[in-house]
């Protein structure tokens, strides 16, 4: 039986993998229900599980599955070297 997923876990997952903008790291709890539902539906569609918009057992299982750390949405442009100056931990610029 899959352990239930808390809403915080869900938010973090959706932000981590680009289903919600990362700016919600600070303002996540103020998201509208509709935005959250849309993000869950998008995740379910990408993961090829039934699209319900709810955190059901299939979604909970998907969240627990090991995966790649790169985001799933093309528009997010994460892991682009262009983003490094903004995203390289704690503002440290790294150059080889």
């Amino acid at each position, binding site marked *: 039986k899959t352990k239930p997923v808390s809403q915080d876990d869900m938010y973090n997952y959706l932000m981590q993998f680009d289903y919600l903008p990362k*700016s919600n790291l600070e303002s996540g709890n103020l998201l509208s229900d509709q935005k959250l539902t849309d993000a869950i539906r998008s995740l379910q569609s990408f993961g090829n599980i039934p699209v319900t918009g709810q955190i059901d057992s299939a979604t909970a299982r998907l969240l*627990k599955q*090991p*995966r790649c*750390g790169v985001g799933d949405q093309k528009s997010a442009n994460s*892991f*682009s070297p262009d983003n490094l100056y*903004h995203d390289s931990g704690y503002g*440290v610029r*790294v150059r080889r």
Partner: protein
Amino acid sequence: YVLQGPKWSRTDLTWSLVNQTMPDASKVRMMVSRALSVWENNSKLTFREVYSDQADIQIVFARLQHGDGYKFDGPGQVLAHAFYPGEGRGGDAHFDADETWDFDGGADDSRGTNFLNVALHELGHSLGLGHSSDTNAIMFPWYQNNEVNGQLPDDDRHGIQELYGSKEKTWGPYRPRPTTTTTTTTMRSLNYYPEKPANRPRYNPNKDWERARERQELERRRQEQERQEQEDRRRERERQREREREQEREQERERDRQERERVRLEMERANRERITTTTRRSTRPYQNGGHRQNHHHSKPRKPKPDTCMTYYDAISMIRGELFIFRGPFLWRIGASGLYPGYPTETRRHWSALPENLTKVDAVYENKQRQIVFFIGRQYYVFNSVNLAPGFPKPLASLGLPPTLTHIDASFVWGHNNRTYLTSGTLYWRIDDYTGQVELDYPRDMSIWSGVGYNIDAAFQYVDGKTYFFKNLGYWEFNDDRMKVAHARTKLSSRKWMQCARNANEVDDEQR
């Protein structure tokens, strides 16, 4: 399939394993080589292994926070990540060292996560492929232990071939078979790639067993020396990187100093013009009448700052009034505007502050309506004007790093009513229940987009909006868009000190 980021401009790419001394390095290299050969066989790409930090694709095993802002999470969940093609870190593939990896390419999950499959996926990112929602695809984001066998699923094959073309054209029936070049041969052609060590001496009936052992021993020593040299080179590279980082930080500080100086000179010039053009005016609203005179004839010990030409160390709403701090002085602005007689010494209000107070770093009013001052490595909590028992306390008692020398700004963000502290490139959130910094912090200041690093001050005004200050200017922050409402700073003195505009000044819109 999804094409993401730029593609490589060349088709002959190099790769290198950074963790050469890890226990399974040889297996890792073999698996990476196998994974790359799958992409190679399905496109015009070729790969060769090098021992160099200049390789296009660096293979790295790292754990938790490893310097790229995308920290790993220990065993399970996130297995690896990779960067899309590009300079610097572009193309690099990072694997979570805390995972239990199976480097033998087996289909048995009980032995661990199949490294070959994960490498195949990550290298797809390194080449410019994003995640696919096709569950059969290599680029499906969730881990699947599928049999690879050198073939790519159609989805991935179409993707890689759109980027780099297919391996070869379809020839007619009489085309002779092309000769193939193995990756191993290509690798050996590099001068600085050492000879692959023989696992055991080749059997030679003309040599006796002792000589074979000698050769083996010599080979072992050579390998050992080579490993040591690699380690030395790695350390030197690390030192070089650190030097470069420090250089960049210094350049950043220098730019900051120059910017402050430029703005100061600009303001001085503007101020001179204002004085000459306002001599005909009878009064200037909210200007401290005696202030300028005080400024010019004040005792050298504590010169008062110019109300209309200064940057702010700290700013906060306290008891419904606006307090602006600069050096050991403060201004107080109420419903009727700037109070007369200001700026005045901060210690006239809060006498328990240090006698040698040179500046207040940050101030805010907490949920208990206490006034919290940050000064250097300490913070002071006041009940109205009385220092609360037990204070001052070190910043570290809030859960901040003991090495932290100061706070730049403290503010309660109107969007969620939470308290934030900033310092340099980082910020923290305070848990209102524990009074301590929350666990997920610090985070990078870049989330407050447009504000930059090393701000002077920040606060929430009565309109609920948050304002950030740097040098002589300020930004209004748009909470919904998580970025500044205007890219250029506006002049602080105009809005907050209600200084008059000089004749030559124009609004941004007019400009």
